[in-house]
């Protein structure tokens, strides 16, 4: 039974007071350019998941507290939470630094595209 903490209202509690919502930071292509979404992009959005053994970034909802969605960084082997952060935010820099593989790639891309913008 995980102990989860909502970064929005500060409520702490059992995982059953929260709702786990799968991988975080998935981009919905149709929101951005509905006319030009390829089959592959749509498939990636709907089905392809980063499924790391180790540090993972995921969505949760404070189901029995404030009702808000938020993000969490969790190790899928030890189950330790490394950070809780806002639903529109990126993880804290020190946690990004621990990301490996596809997640490391993802954050690197996001950080460069954001610094360009």
């Amino acid at each position, binding site marked *: 039974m995980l102990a989860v903490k909502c970064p*929005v*209202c*500060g*409520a702490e*509690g*059992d995982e*059953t*007071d929260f709702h786990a919502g799968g991988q975080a930071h998935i981009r919905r292509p149709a929101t951005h350019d509905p006319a030009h979404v390829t089959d592959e992009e749509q498939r990636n959005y709907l089905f392809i998941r980063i499924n790391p053994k180790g540090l993972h970034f995921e969505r949760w909802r404070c*189901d*029995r*507290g*404030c*009702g*808000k969605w938020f993000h969490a960084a969790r190790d899928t082997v030890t189950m330790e939470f490394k950070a809780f952060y806002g639903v529109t935010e990126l993880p804290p820099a020190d946690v990004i630094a621990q990301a490996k593989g596809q997640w490391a790639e993802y954050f690197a891309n996001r950080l460069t595209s954001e610094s360009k913008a």
Partner: protein
Amino acid sequence: MSELSYQSPLAGVAEPQGLSISIREIDERGMIDLRGLTSDAGFMAAVKGVIGVGLPVKPRTSASWGDVKVLWLSTDQWLILSSRARAHELLSQLRDALQGYHSLAVDVSDMRAIIRLEGDGCREVIMKGTSLDLLDPEYVQGCCRRMRYAEIAALLDVVEDNVFDIYVFRSFAHYTWNFLCATAKAPAKLKLFGAQEVPA
């Protein structure tokens, strides 16, 4: 032409026997669900103007003014409690005052059943249904929060040290009542911490 006939969610439920605490239905309470943004000063002021007290912004707290009490539900949601008779009037005042502010106020007086628990040992009884730590100093008068209770969603209001109101959606009223009757049975009474007798 018909008379208005009223029936509370737990009307007619049998008086419970053999419990370690008292439980009863709280009826005739008016409730307004209010949504708005705390960052919107105009909204906050308009609400205060109507209900007499500023909306609580600290999570899991409540505020009162006269016979009106406001429970914090979320960062942008509150439950305003009053007598049932006043709720209607409050709602129209609110709607007037909130014209032009992004907000939503709805009368939800009939949406929930309220059960009041009173007596020594209430906390232990409730902890048989929720994972909240009601022995934590946070849970004193003025604290309220949503919770998972038994198998359902509920709202807990700490009215006084040994007085708690549990709000549940109306359709779950009987389930909640029965759950309380099962967990508050006198022979199952439990006192957590504090001096215990040494067993023989």
